[in-house]
């Protein structure tokens, strides 16, 4: 795969003027946070955006896997670049929509074991991990009173389709506590219809507080400072111990924060590199969506 993308990269370098032109033509579209209708946008901001491509400020939330691993020993600029090229290449083939931990997704993937060679799994996204081509998500659903989870690699070539059935956020970045919660918190209908969210509206935050089952749990949730958990109803000694083990000084550790993140300048560089292609992919997706929505009117007498 690396070799293939290297070739691709060389080809792109060879046709540098062409690439430039492409990026310039698509830069006519403003890349702002609010999604406007394309006709309106072209006439409105053509003059301004011709010189400079505007990178949307929320890119880092929508495409976190484009940012490399912050661990310095593992950084390799060439590998990261090649990975980004591969990711964009993959995004041109399937639509990987915007979603967050807490959104309800449906993933259709090729499966050699299935009779019709494809399976579909609906579930709430409880974890989003990894970066680059290794980005993965974990979906959870309760099927016939048994909690079921499947991990999917986002850029796996066997994935056929990723649909967002309900786009929303939760209070936490990881919902692993749903494993210790009663089943109704993670039960979703398999034939659920996708909910429509008008364009331009901010992503709603689901503020449900999860009431856990009594102990034993898979983790000591009283020590994790989860915002989405209701009162845990534990004995005093648990909270006491949690307080003993808390690390309140960690929020002041400036260098620890720095080593965990990618600095703003690097983020800008990365997203400036990929945003024209990403925008192109998004425009394509919108066009396809509009095509699908159109229903031929039928005569009714």
């Amino acid at each position, binding site marked *: 795969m690396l070799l293939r993308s290297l070739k691709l990269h060389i080809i792109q370098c060879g046709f540098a003027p062409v690439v430039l032109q492409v990026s310039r033509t698509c830069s006519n579209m403003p890349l702002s946070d609010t999604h406007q209708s394309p006709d309106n946008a072209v006439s409105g901001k053509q003059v301004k955006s011709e010189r400079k491509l505007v990178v949307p400020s929320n890119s880092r939330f929508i495409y976190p896997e484009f940012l490399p691993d912050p661990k310095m020993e593992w950084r390799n600029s060439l590998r990261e670049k090649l990975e980004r090229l591969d990711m964009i290449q993959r995004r041109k083939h399937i639509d990987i929509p915007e979603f967050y931990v807490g959104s309800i997704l449906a993933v259709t993937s090729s499966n050699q*074991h299935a009779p019709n060679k494809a399976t579909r799994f609906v579930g709430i996204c409880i974890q989003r991990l990894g970066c680059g081509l290794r980005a993965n998500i974990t979906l959870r659903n309760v099927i016939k009173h048994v909690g079921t989870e499947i991990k999917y690699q986002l850029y796996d070539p066997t994935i056929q389709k990723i649909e967002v059935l309900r786009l929303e956020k939760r209070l936490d970045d990881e919902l692993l506590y749903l494993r210790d919660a009663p089943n109704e918190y993670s039960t979703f209908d398999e034939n659920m219809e996708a909910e429509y969210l008008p364009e331009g509206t901010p992503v709603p935050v689901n503020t449900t507080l999860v009431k856990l089952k009594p102990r034993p749990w898979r983790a000591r949730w009283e020590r994790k400072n989860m915002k989405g958990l209701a009162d845990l109803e534990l004995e005093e000694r648990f909270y006491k111990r949690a307080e003993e083990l808390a690390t309140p000084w960690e929020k002041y550790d400036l260098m620890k924060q720095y080593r965990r993140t990618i600095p703003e300048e690097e983020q800008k560089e990365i997203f400036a590199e990929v945003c024209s292609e990403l925008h192109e992919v998004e425009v394509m997706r919108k066009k396809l969506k509009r095509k699908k929505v159109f229903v031929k009117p039928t005569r009714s007498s």
Partner: protein
Amino acid sequence: MLSTICAARKFSTSAVTNHIMKLTRLRVVDNSKIGKQAMAEGKPPRCIHIYNKKGIGTIGDKILVAIKGEKVKAIIVGCVKEQKANIPRFDSNNIVLIDDNGTPLGTRINVPIPIMLRTILKEKTFSKGADYTKLLAIASNYV
């Protein structure tokens, strides 16, 4: 009190792996009489042997369980432990009881079973040995 806490801190602990190994408690998910009874009494079967060379069972492995004072063979149809991508992981260690020929004791499986079992069990079946594919026929739901 303090000394007991200090003593408890002197050994290190590792993260829970949720392996299925000897003496693991399991959950019978078919409607066989013995399995239902054992689950209803609150005495779920215990794994006493795993028929592979690692001693740790995963989806599709045959195991021997002790259930209500009897030794019965069973097939694992779902594990709690972390799985690789595209392989489902369940909230309980599910087993289906079988006899020596691979025929399930029950007539129905009430939980979803991983779809990869179709291939795994077919590969394990030999023409004159045990036939495990009968288990697939009584499954009601695949994931």
